[in-house]
């Protein structure tokens, strides 16, 4: 069992780097708030996805063997330094993972820093900008955004493709991936306000909408979703991230943090951080995976 460095566990960012304000977090945890924001996409947690805790070890070992954790449907890291875009980085991982899970491609090592899988291009993986819908949720740029806002806008309008893609899909409308550092698989650029977004952007964004979103009602439900290969986006201690693998032998959640790195939440953190979380189970699908937004859309 490899040791996980303590500095990667229960990481709390410096206050000036936190992009999930406590006021927003508390509001998002109010009963029914996230459900209401997703409209017709909201779904109750189904019995079919419940995994009895006594089965967690066996199912986790199966996922380890088969590489069918949510992390295995993530093909890139993002890097938000030094912005407050975290809720959107978490959202984009969640929707990218749901989409890749449907596409049926397993990325055996999950995201790797400065690495691009050949399969991303062959399978029609799409990378989304974290600048939208952050720019609508917080036009002031600094200060972060709430989960309910960005989720509502994602369900209403869809997501915008990043300027960098695994292959040129001939998208009519794209946006910089982040105002932050970015990386090999994420473009970066100046702030683009909603008013400055390319004309007709909605015609591209509508092809990338969450169709079904589940809101765990307990930490055990959150673990069940992860065991079933579904990312769970959570916010805690001023930062939003997507849980992507349950380490059964360490009782920890692993997540791809928007700093080009894997980090971990201990069981103590998991037991409170699940509140106000969401999991995108299905996303709009294209007529042809080679043309994710249709022909020249």
């Amino acid at each position, binding site marked *: 069992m490899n040791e996980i460095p303590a500095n990667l566990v229960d990481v709390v960012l410096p206050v000036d780097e936190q992009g999930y304000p406590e006021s927003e977090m508390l509001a998002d945890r109010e009963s029914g708030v996230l459900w209401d924001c997703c409209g017709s996409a909201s779904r109750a947690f189904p019995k079919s*996805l419940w995994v009895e805790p006594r089965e967690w070890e066996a199912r986790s070992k199966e996922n380890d063997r088969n590489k069918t954790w949510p992390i295995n449907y993530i093909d890139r890291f993002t890097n938000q330094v030094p912005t407050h875009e975290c809720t959107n980085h978490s959202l984009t991982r969640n929707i990218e993972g749901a989409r890749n899970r449907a596409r049926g491609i397993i990325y055996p090592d999950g995201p790797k820093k400065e690495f691009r899988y050949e399969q991303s291009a062959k399978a029609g993986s799409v990378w989304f900008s974290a600048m939208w819908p952050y720019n609508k949720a917080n036009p002031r740029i600094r200060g972060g955004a709430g989960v309910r806002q960005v989720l509502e806008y994602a369900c209403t309008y869809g997501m915008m493709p990043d300027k960098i893609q695994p292959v040129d899909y001939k998208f009519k409308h794209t946006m910089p991936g982040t105002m932050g550092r970015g990386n090999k698989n994420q473009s970066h650029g100046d702030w683009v306000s909603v008013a400055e977004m390319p004309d007709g952007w909605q015609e591209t964004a509508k*092809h990338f909408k969450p169709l079904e979103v589940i809101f765990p009602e307990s930490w055990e439900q959150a673990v069940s979703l992860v065991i079933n290969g579904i990312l769970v986006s959570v916010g805690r201690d001023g930062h939003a991230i997507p849980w992507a693998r349950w380490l059964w032998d360490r009782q920890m959640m692993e997540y791809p943090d928007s700093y080009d790195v894997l980090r971990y939440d201990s069981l103590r953190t998991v037991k409170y951080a699940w509140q106000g979380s969401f999991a995108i189970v299905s996303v709009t699908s294209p007529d042809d995976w080679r043309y994710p937004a*249709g022909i020249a859309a």
Partner: protein
Amino acid sequence: MKNSTKLFVGLLLFIAIGWSLDKSNELIPQTKITAVTYVYEKDKTEIPSLVAVGINKLNIEKGVIATSIEIDAFDGTGEIPKQYQTPIAAAKAAGVPDTISALLVATSGDKVLQTVKEPTTDTQVLEVVP
């Protein structure tokens, strides 16, 4: 019948059978599976881990488009995506989600070639593509 005659007749028969087998292969068109879709209702089932393995292997090793789609799949315009109209129709006809939780559908264009009810293993998935 002389032995040489028997041998000659036997040889003729052998050639005739071989020719007809060869011809019979030409008469049965070999339809190539182009897509395999695991159509499921998430309220009834998860995507089994081994099914996901099989789906991945079909993509990587067999060159078919293999995917896992919820029965209520839509595209960005609110319509059933063209590539899923046939498998979703087949799944509904087979009873998804009312009587069964999932159906694996192998298609060639808009023609259904084979289905597997509620697969749980990678072997069941891989077997649909010879």
